[in-house]
């Protein structure tokens, strides 16, 4: 049904933005982790969004249109170089006394976090608006 397409699009965006928020908080939590299971310091992770479905369809289609919205295509690792900090006392310091710290930029993560929050709020507004329209249509 028509309204549910719009609701599905916004709901997919809510979960995509929430996943983005999870990744951001994971980055911030590991901003100082010098050890990972793969070995070496933690690498910053990023989500890749991909548009889902094609063109929104009118009501009188065959009712089997692809679901709209957005999906997280993959989570990739930032391949930029680690931050090298001189700390000879650190157990993970190399021969020159430098420690490879994660390539997480706290300020960048905070701005990404605000962006994700705003996008989440916008989609909640869309859902409320669609709900209002559906309720109004029931009054006819």
């Amino acid at each position: 049904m028509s309204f549910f397409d719009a609701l599905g699009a916004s709901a997919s965006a809510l979960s995509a933005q929430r996943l983005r928020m999870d990744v951001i908080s994971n980055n911030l939590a590991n901003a100082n982790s010098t050890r990972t299971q793969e070995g070496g310091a933690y690498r910053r992770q990023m989500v890749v969004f991909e548009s889902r479905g094609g063109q929104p369809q009118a009501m009188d289609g065959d009712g089997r249109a692809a679901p709209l919205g957005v999906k997280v295509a993959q989570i990739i690792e930032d391949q930029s170089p680690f931050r090298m900090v001189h700390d000879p006392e650190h157990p993970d310091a190399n021969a020159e006394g430098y420690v490879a710290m994660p390539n997480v930029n706290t300020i960048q993560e905070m701005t990404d976090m605000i962006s994700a929050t705003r996008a989440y709020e916008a989609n909640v507004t869309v859902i409320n608006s669609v709900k209002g329209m559906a309720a109004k249509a029931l009054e006819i």
Partner: protein
Amino acid sequence: MLEQIFGNTDVYAEALDGLSLRQKALAQNVANVDTPGYKRFDVAYEGQLRRRFEKDAGEQSEIAADLRVGNERHFTLGPLGGGGASIQRVDRQVYRNDQNNVDIEQEMARLAETTMRFNTMATLTRNKFDGLKTLIREIR
């Protein structure tokens, strides 16, 4: 006779269809506000409706042609639906580095406008049917 009673309920239906398609396109746009390379969808239906009105006002015979059926005593409700709304992708107006042309403020303003228009059309439709009900009840 019948087209005078039912008047332009089919125009209301087309307007409601067009507005809900626009709402769907807006939901898809807001969902993809952070998707790189996404181009926004736009729905135009007022133009089609206006042409339709001009046609109806211009030549009454067009309405008669729409209402023509096999037997003269049969009646129809006129051209219902008809898919007056058209959706298209807007490729120009790219101003962001990620080649995405969704402007979240514009989309939210359009969303509010679409909701208000939809509510207005739904109220008008409801009033129309209330009037018909009164007509059916009171005339004997």
